């Protein structure tokens, strides 16, 4: 377990962030009371661009992969009710594994790099997306389904034209939670050499120089907020009936 971690850290170090930063901190050392070094930030802000894009790609890929798997599992469980509890338990167990442990557990299988990160991050989204999809489908009023079947909707039409549209708010709510937590969790991907904003947080291991950590954290928070807002907006546009109430 320790060996891969060392490799990972070494990988991060090899990419050169540690060395660069330690040299740049010199500018701030004249004023050690400064928590945030604006001068350094101005000169080095461009070095956050690549990690930010890497981070975003990783989040989008993981949530998308997690959604595909969780959604398929939820539809399966919706059709075959007896599958619901075991699948919930299975995704729940995945969710309880400590994240770092899971990253390292997968290293022997998928090796260093993006694949490992995406597999782990996707695994953590399964529980919330699966559970919310099941809840959304279960909340569709029985009378609505009865009416649909009674009018001649086939089972497939009931699912795609009635149940899923009505479950959309819960499904998107699950996606929002999954996305936000993935944005945060993806900072750990640096330990399997997958890059991302984690490189700017853990990369140096130099916590006496917090400027880089603070900038990376701010970008992580901003990314979470923006993605959440985008999903919320999409949900509102897709479910206009939710805001229509008796006037």
């Amino acid at each position: 377990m320790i060996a891969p971690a060392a490799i990972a850290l070494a990988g991060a170090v090899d990419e050169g962030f540690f060395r660069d930063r330690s040299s740049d901190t010199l500018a701030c050392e004249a004023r050690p009371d400064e928590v945030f070094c604006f001068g350094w930030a101005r000169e080095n802000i461009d070095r956050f661009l690549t990690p930010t894009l890497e981070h975003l790609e990783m989040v989008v890929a993981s949530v998308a992969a997690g959604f595909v798997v969780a959604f398929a599992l939820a539809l399966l469980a919706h059709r075959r009710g007896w599958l619901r509890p075991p699948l919930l338990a299975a995704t729940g167990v995945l969710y309880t594994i400590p994240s770092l442990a899971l990253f390292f557990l997968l290293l022997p299988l998928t090796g260093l790099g993006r694949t490992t990160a995406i597999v782990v991050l996707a695994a953590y989204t399964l529980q919330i997306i699966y559970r919310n999809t099941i809840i959304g489908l279960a909340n569709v009023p029985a009378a609505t389904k009865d009416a649909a079947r009674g009018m001649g909707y086939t089972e497939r039409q009931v699912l795609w034209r009635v149940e899923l549209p009505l479950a959309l708010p819960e499904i998107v709510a699950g996606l929002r939670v999954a996305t936000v937590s993935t944005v945060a969790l993806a900072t750990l991907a640096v330990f399997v050499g997958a890059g991302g904003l984690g490189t700017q947080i853990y990369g140096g291991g130099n916590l006496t120089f917090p400027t880089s950590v603070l900038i990376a954290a701010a970008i992580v928070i901003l990314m979470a907020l923006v993605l959440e807002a985008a999903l919320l907006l999409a949900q509102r546009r897709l479910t206009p009936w939710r805001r229509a109430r008796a006037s």
Partner: protein
Amino acid sequence: MRGSEAGYRLVAVPSSEPATHTQPAARAGRSASPVSYVGATKRYGPGPPAVDHLDLEVPAGEICVLVGPSGCGKTTAMRMVNRTVELSEGDVLIGDESVRERDPARLRREIGYVIQQVGLFPHRTVAQNIAAVPELLGWEKDRIRARTAELLELIGLDPELGSRYPAQLSGGQQQRVGVARALAADPLVMLMDEPFGAIDPINRERLQNEFLRLQSELRKTVLFVTHDIDEAIKMGDRIAVMREGGRLEQYATPAELLMAPATPFVEDFVGADRALKRLALMRVADVDLWQPATARAGEACAEVRARLAMPDVDVPFPLLLDAAGRPLGWLSERDLAAATVPEQPDSPLGPLLETDDVLRDALADMLQAGAQYAAVADPQGRLAGVLSFEVISDFLGSARAHAPLPRPAEAAPAAPAPPRGGRP
């Protein structure tokens, strides 16, 4: 296009169309189909069946009400028709075609379906809800749009509401949309499962009347489930009374059911007040009204007194009519003491009934006014006769509601009275 659409047009469209297109026969659209249950049985596991060898013939274009206490299998029986409940045994025929041989989804698109909780799609607009079955059937967009507008008009809903969502409508409006949605593809048969059960009493009555008005034009074959015997009597051309274990106790017209309950269960179910309920089925015109002595202003009072003395006159006071024969009020002894009939009667008319009034409502009016007699006017307002408590009680006592009523042996009551008339 107009001509080919006429088959789907349910409502008179003000236009230059030939009149024949807007007559009820042309508006009725496709014909309705009869529905027959042949030994239809549904079992859920061991134990008594939910529906037990049901035999029932519902003629095309009639409303058949399935009524009974909860657990009597009425809803199960109704759902056999569109196969939302599968038969265990026996068969259900629509026309002469067995539902068992049909693909369920295709079958259901030919059958209107209305349920108590309405079950509108919350995520689709009113117009999209109404268009649901036409969409499934692959109608063209223009035809769907025309049909939706037509149905909104038919159920008396503002066309503007078509773009609203169901949550923006009242309960009564939602149920109207539910009925419109069921009618959209001009179904052969309509299934209605306690459609007005969740609506408050005032709106329920309104919806019932609206549906009866629609039905008088559309003439669909309707299977209507309710647990409310009064609703059954009001809505049904025929009523099937069912009891626990899915057994049919009696299948008859409302009048037959009230007059001759076939079993103690039916008698109990229709209630001890079935005599009163019969009043709800009859109109004032259906009973033999009394003919009073009449008088007009300026006539000699002696002549009027002579008419009053005729043996077949049951009302002890003459009724003053205007020139057109419309009743004005009752003449008192004091009026008749003069030489000629006065222009103004001594006693006001009291309640004025119409021949179209339901007998129960007429009785209620008389009780409300405290009147023993009430004049009845025909649709033109002219006197048609006089309704009295005696006429009503004789009607209730008669073996058949339609039979001529025997005239009372006893004389008219000693103290007749148009109400509050200050009768001497």
